[in-house]
């Protein structure tokens, strides 16, 4: 479950498989959303996302690699003034299409969940029971 801790949202660690699936799906859309805005290098992307959501930063790289394999993202090297060249990730056309699709699905899904929660709240209140 999502837990707020110091203004940040945290996923309670592992175990629940549904949580992990959910987390994976969410991370995909989060990463694409970032890249849709601008190109990032790995560390930068992770740091940025960490401001909003806490997660195992190490798992970003396999995700990015999978995107690259699926053609949603491509990489290039760019010189950096502070050390060796950095590997940047750039979203592709396919990636943008995938992103739009994912956003649509996400909105539909969250709307449906919201509706369900409100329905149940209404029903449980009308029964004269305690508010959830």
């Amino acid at each position, binding site marked *: 479950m999502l837990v707020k801790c110091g203004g940040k949202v945290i996923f309670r660690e592992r175990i629940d498989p549904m949580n992990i699936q959910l987390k994976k799906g969410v991370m995909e859309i989060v990463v694409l959303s970032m890249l849709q805005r601008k190109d990032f290098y*790995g*560390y930068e992307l992770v740091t940025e996302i960490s401001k909003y959501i806490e997660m*195992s930063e*190490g798992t970003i790289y*396999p995700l990015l*690699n999978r995107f690259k394999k699926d053609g949603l993202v491509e990489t290039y090297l760019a010189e950096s003034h502070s050390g*060796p060249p*950095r590997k940047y990730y750039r979203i592709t056309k396919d990636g943008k299409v995938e992103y739009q699709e994912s956003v649509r699905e996400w909105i539909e899904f969250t709307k449906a969940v919201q509706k369900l929660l409100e329905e149940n709240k209404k029903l449980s209140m009308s029964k004269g029971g305690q508010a959830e």
Partner: protein
Amino acid sequence: MTREEFMDLLRYYFRNINQTQVNEILADYESHFEEGKAAGLSEEEIARELGSPKEIFEMYQDEGMIREKKSTTFMDVASQAEKTASQTWEEVSAQLPEKVNHATHVMVKGFRIVCDVIAVLILGFTLLLVFLLSMQFQPVMGMDPLPVFSPITMGAFGFSGFFLALAVFFVGEEGKKIFEEKSVQREKTPSGDTDKEGEEQK
């Protein structure tokens, strides 16, 4: 854990993976440590934020991203053996119907021959006995000759033997017919044999 510990552990989980792939993957994490260091974080902090190497490895596995390099563990040998065995079985079983048919034919022929031989033997034996017994045959010198049986007894004995031989002979013939029927059925063409069979039995 330290950077070295983290990378070593990661390398350990990826030990059975194609090393070219692994080097690429590890490079990502090496530069992550570099960037973190440049940002002023300690190795422990960076490693903690990265999460567990095991989880990272599992995620690469889940994504279907990695291929194992060829190794000869027992399981590899066992699964290779299993593959070979099932391939062989497929090849053999494809040939089996033929072979079974062939084997059946051989068996049938053999059966028939055996029956014929037995029939002939019985017949021969019967005739011999009948002949000998009618001659007061002395099997061994010094022994009393075998008693003479009445012609009726001899006749009955002879006929029994004769019909027994005939029966065995026909069993051989029938067996052949049944097998032929079965193999013909297998070849998916019904034949007139079935009719003959029915008639004979009547």
